[in-house]
């Protein structure tokens, strides 16, 4: 999520230094728990007296709820509580109300799988039997699931009478958002072009595809105090939402995050947690809820699908004279800003005199979209990078040279407004050009694709606290669920700053009562923001420890410095004292003023944008239309890789999710508006045998906004693969591909159509 991006707003944090711990590859602190099966994920906790709850979901894509009769369910032996939308509190903000209505339909169901009621019972089996006894009378309404169809005047209206802000005349009532970005005179720019390519592209909705289904365990007593255990990317978000929906003070609800089995943005909102809490409140018993995989597909995530027109003009030597994109996204039945992010990112890789992007969000009868890794960017950049590739092809120009000629750099006025500070796009492109992959020969039916990618990165609200223990070790508490190794990188930054070994630090993710507020683990923000707060918490502890040493030495605290994990006098004038180590200071802390701790709270800024370039070689079988990924190399600017293994892991994982998006993955709806492939058999994510090794090349162009130069790395990696693979397939198949996924039948049809 990007909400308050201000490039260059914080430029004074970074200072060059030699690292001792940062940049090494120690085993992750939660590793042994995870290889032995000891780690507790969302569905792994039980409580004494626990009930199990399941959800009744709409069989219709669009219907008015005339009535709900729960009496039959309540009468069944073993049923302890039933809730519907009547059991939740009306919300003050439309955003919260939409999220609540998505958790439990109010008045209307908007998609196949929309929750209507929930039952808590002594077992899952009894709860499911009870669901069959709930009588819902529906008035079925016409539905729409396609983005372009949703914009037609003839489309059924989802939210009758609801007004959305800043929608221009001429759009129908399903358009919930409209945005414009850009600068310069595009008409004049296109007039200067030697060649103009205009194309339309479509991308399918894809699911985040985390292997762990949503799961939660909630308790609430008659004293109004509650507890939630949940797999989530943000337990403070869960606390705030669930408390608001059930109508209690946030202080009375403690949320503890489980280990999280993947999220990719899909666990940045609530589905089950408020429902489990309401059932716990009504029944007076702990309530566990776990989604089935079918429910995950039908009712959580996915990302938006898109329909985009791109027009780019170029001179014959490769300079882009103007770019324009019109992006239409649908993200299901409730408003969202993903199309806006698409419009902001579409041309971000380029330094352009004239650029314009227009974006619409359209409401459709599909599940409420959730963030998915760089939300909005992959599909926008796919369309732009496909057209850039086609221009290079038509002008017989090298695609990396053209991108270098037009690349955004420090001082570039970006296509979405801010002026870029230090960025790594040029270095990343140069690394790709110089890599042996780029010069390797291609075989028959093979093609090579190139694409740039971009993500803003987010910073945001962050709290970190650390205690200096009497044995010279350090306990760190952070408040962001560790989704890919962040406890390792946070421990490393604490150790680096304090000047102690990595294994003297243990970092845990605390519950909502442990430390101050934290934004959700999203926007590639954790290594940046939590790292920044950890470094500053360490500096606070160091200041305290220097004061203790000064006290013992009888000198001024300002005359004490911190070097290699010990207090030292600052120069000869301060006096001659041997270094006093962290362990020595900690051991005597009771005598020098009590416990030593450091903490830092900040609404961080200066996340620093991240660029990547992907190279892929594909082979297309002209007989079957099947695409094989032959070779894949990722180049990405990490600012500074704290733990390079996990930076590479983010780059590799993002690339493979993007490959799935390009080749296989899609939400398939029937004429009846029902999802037809709600399972991993028919919604096919990449498996090990689909892939080669994914080479990862880390570039380090320091981010001025972070003390160690860190940039977020989690999201950029999913942005380039869509266009990189599409460009490779287009070259291999000899025909420009304009719709994702590029499934074998679609590729065959394109080959046949071009004959």
């Amino acid at each position, binding site marked *: 999520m990007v909400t308050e991006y201000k490039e260059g707003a914080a430029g004074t944090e970074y200072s060059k230094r030699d690292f001792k711990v940062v940049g090494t590859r120690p085993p992750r602190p939660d590793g042994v728990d995870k*290889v032995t099966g000891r780690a507790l994920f969302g569905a792994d906790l039980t409580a004494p007296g626990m009930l199990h709850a399941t959800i009744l979901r709409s069989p219709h894509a669009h219907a008015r709820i005339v009535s709900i009769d729960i009496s039959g369910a309540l009468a069944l032996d073993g049923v302890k509580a039933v809730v519907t939308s009547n059991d939740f509190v009306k919300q003050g903000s439309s955003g919260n109300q939409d999220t609540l209505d998505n958790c439990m339909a109010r008045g209307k169901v908007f998609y196949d799988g929309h929750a209507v009621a929930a039952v808590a019972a002594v077992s899952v089996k009894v709860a499911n039997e009870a669901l069959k006894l709930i009588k819902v009378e529906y008035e079925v309404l016409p539905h729409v699931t396609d983005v372009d169809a949703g914009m037609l005047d003839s489309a059924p209206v989802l939210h009758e009478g609801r007004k959305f802000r800043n929608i221009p005349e001429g759009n129908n009532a399903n358009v919930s958002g409209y945005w414009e970005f850009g600068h310069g005179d595009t008409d004049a720019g296109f007039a200067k072009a030697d060649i103009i390519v205009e194309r339309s592209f479509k991308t399918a909705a894809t699911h985040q595809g985390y292997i762990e289904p949503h799961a939660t365990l909630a308790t609430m007593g008659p004293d109004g105090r509650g507890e939630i255990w949940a797999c989530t990317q943000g337990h403070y978000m869960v606390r705030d939402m669930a408390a608001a929906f059930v109508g209690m003070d946030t202080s009375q609800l403690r949320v503890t995050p489980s280990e999280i089995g993947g999220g990719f943005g899909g666990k940045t909102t609530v589905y089950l947690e408020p429902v489990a809490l309401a059932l716990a409140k009504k029944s007076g018993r702990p309530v566990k809820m776990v989604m089935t995989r079918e429910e995950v597909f039908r009712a959580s995530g996915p990302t938006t699908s898109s329909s985009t027109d791109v027009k780019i003009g170029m001179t014959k030597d490769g300079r882009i004279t103007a770019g324009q994109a019109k992006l239409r996204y649908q993200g299901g039945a409730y408003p969202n800003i993903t199309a806006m992010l698409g419009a902001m990112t579409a041309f971000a890789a380029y330094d352009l005199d004239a650029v314009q992007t227009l974006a619409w969000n359209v409401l459709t009868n599909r599940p409420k979209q959730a963030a998915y890794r760089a939300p909005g960017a992959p599909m926008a950049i796919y369309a732009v990078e496909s057209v850039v590739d086609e221009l290079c092809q038509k002008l017989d120009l090298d695609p990396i040279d053209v991108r270098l000629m037009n690349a955004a750099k420090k001082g570039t006025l970006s296509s979405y407004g801010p002026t870029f500070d230090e960025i790594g796009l040029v270095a990343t492109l140069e690394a790709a050009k110089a890599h042996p992959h780029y010069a390797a020969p291609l075989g028959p039916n093979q093609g090579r694709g190139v694409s740039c990618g971009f993500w803003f990165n987010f910073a945001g609200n962050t709290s970190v606290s650390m205690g200096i223990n009497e044995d010279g070790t350090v306990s760190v508490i952070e408040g962001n669920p560790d989704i890919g190794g962040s406890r390792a990188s946070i421990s490393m930054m604490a150790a680096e700053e304090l000047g102690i070994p990595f294994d003297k630090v243990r970092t845990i993710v605390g519950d909502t009562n442990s430390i101050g507020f934290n934004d959700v683990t999203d926007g590639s923000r954790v290594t940046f923001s939590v790292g920044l707060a950890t470094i500053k918490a360490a500096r606070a502890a160091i200041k305290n420890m220097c004061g203790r040493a000064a006290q013992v030495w009888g000198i001024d605290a300002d005359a004490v410095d911190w070097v290699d994990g010990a207090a030292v006098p600052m120069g000869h004038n301060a006096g001659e004292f041997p270094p006093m180590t962290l362990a020595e200071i900690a051991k005597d802390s009771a005598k020098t003023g009590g416990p030593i701790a450091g903490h830092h709270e900040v609404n961080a800024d200066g996340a620093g944008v991240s660029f990547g370039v992907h190279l892929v070689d594909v082979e297309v079988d002209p007989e079957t239309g099947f695409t094989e990924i032959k070779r894949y190399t990722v180049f990405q600017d990490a600012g500074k890789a704290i733990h390079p293994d996990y930076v590479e*892991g983010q780059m*590799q994982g993002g690339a493979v999710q993007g490959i799935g998006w390009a080749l296989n993955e899609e939400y398939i709806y029937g004429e009846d508006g029902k999802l037809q492939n709600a399972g991993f058999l028919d919604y096919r994510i990449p498996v090990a045998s689909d892939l080669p090794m994914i080479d990862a090349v880390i570039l380090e162009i320091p981010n001025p906004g972070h003390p160690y130069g860190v940039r977020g790395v989690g999201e950029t990696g999913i942005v380039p693969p869509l266009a990189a693979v599409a460009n490779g397939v287009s070259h291999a198949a000899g025909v420009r591909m304009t719709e994702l996924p590029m499934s074998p039948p679609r590729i065959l049809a394109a080959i046949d159509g071009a004959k």
Partner: protein
Amino acid sequence: MSKIHVSTSINGDAVEYLCDPSETLLDVLRNRVGLTGAKEGCGSGDCGACSVELDGRLVCSCLVLAAEAEGKEVSTVEGLADGEKLHVLQQKMLEHAALQCGICTPGILVAAKALLEKNPDPTETEVRYWLAGNLCRCTGYDKIIRAVMDAAAEMRGA
């Protein structure tokens, strides 16, 4: 319906349980025996997160009825380490940073162990096809494949 009494062996320990006729081995492991290392990612045999060995054969425990374990030997991720000593595969998964969220890790480990018992010297392609039934959404499989290949090499040398 009355429950079925099952006597089985789990990770070498004799275990008895009562289960419903419709209950899966995964449900019993997780909910009755208290072994939550095997995970339910799909319940339909598509993701491999619930992989266990049943008499030495790699199975998705979500597709096996709990009653079928009668008289058999069940091996789960919890049985992989020997006390404080990690199995080579576990050690190599850590060394290669072959996990991010870790939800697929137990299934991958059990499946990889089953592979190396059959084929101590697999090619990369053989490892990739053997693990094709174990979905990982985080890593892109690169580091997992390297970890398994490295473990195989070390186990052959040992």
